[in-house]
């Protein structure tokens, strides 16, 4: 669909020159992805820690993102790639939650999954110490989300009858 802004229709918005996001093609861009969406925690490694200092209002909460990667100095970028253990465990976690074969290797399937359009909210958050609420005991929020029989223990029989996995 052509989109016009000015009244004389002279400024046909060229849909082709819309800014494209940088594709995730290699381990470095994969590492930035894993950092941006919380798979590599800021606390995982000191180097990453310095990159994710608490930011003021004007800076990015995620100082690392796909456009600004180029702005990193060469030394910190290579150091980032040397975070091998963190990178592999983060990669495995991403593969696990994405229902991919958990190989720990930046393979094609993982690359494709990383390049999917997605929500910008991080997948893994710095979970504060979870306190037990009055009616539900929550060990890990994700666990509660995936297994609802516990949410209302007193009606587990009802949930049992209506749990789609059972249906």
């Amino acid at each position, binding site marked *: 669909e052509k989109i016009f802004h000015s009244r004389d229709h002279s400024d046909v918005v060229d849909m082709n020159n819309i800014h*494209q*996001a940088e594709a995730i093609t290699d381990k470095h861009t994969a590492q930035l992805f894993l950092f941006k969406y919380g798979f590599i925690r800021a606390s995982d490694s000191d180097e990453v820690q310095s990159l994710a200092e608490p930011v003021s209002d004007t800076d990015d909460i995620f100082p690392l993102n796909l456009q600004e990667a180029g702005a990193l100095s060469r030394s910190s970028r290579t150091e980032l790639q040397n975070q091998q253990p963190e990178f592999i465990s983060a990669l495995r976690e991403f593969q696990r939650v994405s229902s991919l074969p958990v190989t720990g290797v930046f393979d094609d399937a993982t690359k494709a999954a990383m390049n999917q359009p997605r*929500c*910008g909210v991080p*997948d893994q958050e710095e979970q504060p110490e979870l306190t037990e609420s*009055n009616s539900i005991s929550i060990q890990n*929020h994700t666990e509660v989300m995936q297994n609802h029989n516990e*949410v209302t223990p007193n009606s587990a029989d009802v949930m049992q009858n209506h749990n*789609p996995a059972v249906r």
Partner: protein
Amino acid sequence: RKRHLAALLKNRRRRDVGDWTGHMSFSKTLLKWRVIGEGYSSQLSIDEQKYIFRLGFRMWSEVSPLEFQEDLHSPLEDIDIRLGFGTGRHLGCSQRFDGAGHEFAHAWFLGDIHFDDDEHFTVPNTGSGISLLKVAVHEIGHVLGLPHIYRAGSIMQPSYLPQDSGFEIDWMDRKSIQSLYGVCQGRFSAVFDWIRKELTPYGEVTVRFNTYFMRDGWYWLYENRNNRTRYGDPVAVPVGWNGLPDSGVDAYVHVWNRKTDAVYFFKGVQYWRYDSENDRVFANDSLGRSYPRLISDDFPGVIGPLDTAYYDRRDAHVYFFKGSQVFRFDVRTNRLAKSSPQRITAVFPAVVPGDHPVRNVDASYFSYTHNSVFLLKGERYWRVVSARDRRRKPSLPLNALLPHRDVDQQWFDICDVHSSSLR
């Protein structure tokens, strides 16, 4: 700018973080939203964008106690959820967008939603591109306090999956939002199964029924097999029940025996007979007298307004409930039973002493799904002992009431939506 910042800090949106259960949630159920003035997309018309956001909020309202209202007038800092489109560095947000591909939107708990206008967002059911509705429902879920959920079928999956024709919020996602905001509850003015006869292509007559819950001027069709209401409900009563009063009804009765098949709706001191085949009220009765008619004219001894009523095919009586009394009306003799009126506690004794609605029953409902009569009052219901129960346990008195249970544990997710989002 200083004054504005001070105002912001002073009037910080009252967002009490309930007891910290791992995720924040709003502490109120009516939430105001607005598309930020400079935040409209350049790709869709304003009407399309507003329609989609209104629908997105409505979808969450249909499965939770939350209601949403677009607010175009209050100060911006009083708006609970602010939405806007932008590209790259946008709307003063601290997280810039990355262009077409990858990140299409982000949201902040209890706060704002930003959509990347470099993405090719589309309206529902139109070709390729990213469904703005599906993204909006996902991001609204974040604002309400839901994290990403890695479960096939969940709307809260982080990656976008092209929208199958009609995505809806499934059972597990409903329970997720309800774990933050509770289940939907409330009293009903009438609950009934509506029966209709249909001819099959082969000329056979089949009988169909649907279950309806009515609350004041709104109603839901309840799908027993799916344990949920029909998508898109509630609907205003006049929209679906041609000729019934806008404010809904007090009772529904279907007198159905070998000689009679008549549906009646009662409201106040009047009643209508309903034409199920043509799906509208009858204009006149068989003697040409126009509806609505006075209840007492045609049901001698019964005077509206009623709490509720139902027809019992076993004894061919209509049971009219009013206050603490019940009136048994014999449709064959068109007269009240001699023993009427009686106390509800006498006609429907409690199996467990003290566990009884006693008076002001909201709705009496014979369910074809459960082959039982239910009495509903507030958020509770009592099931009337059935013939099968008494065969198993002969000691149970006739029409006794079994111990109460919660309505929302038998009929799920019957939720109000804000009147502004009624279609």
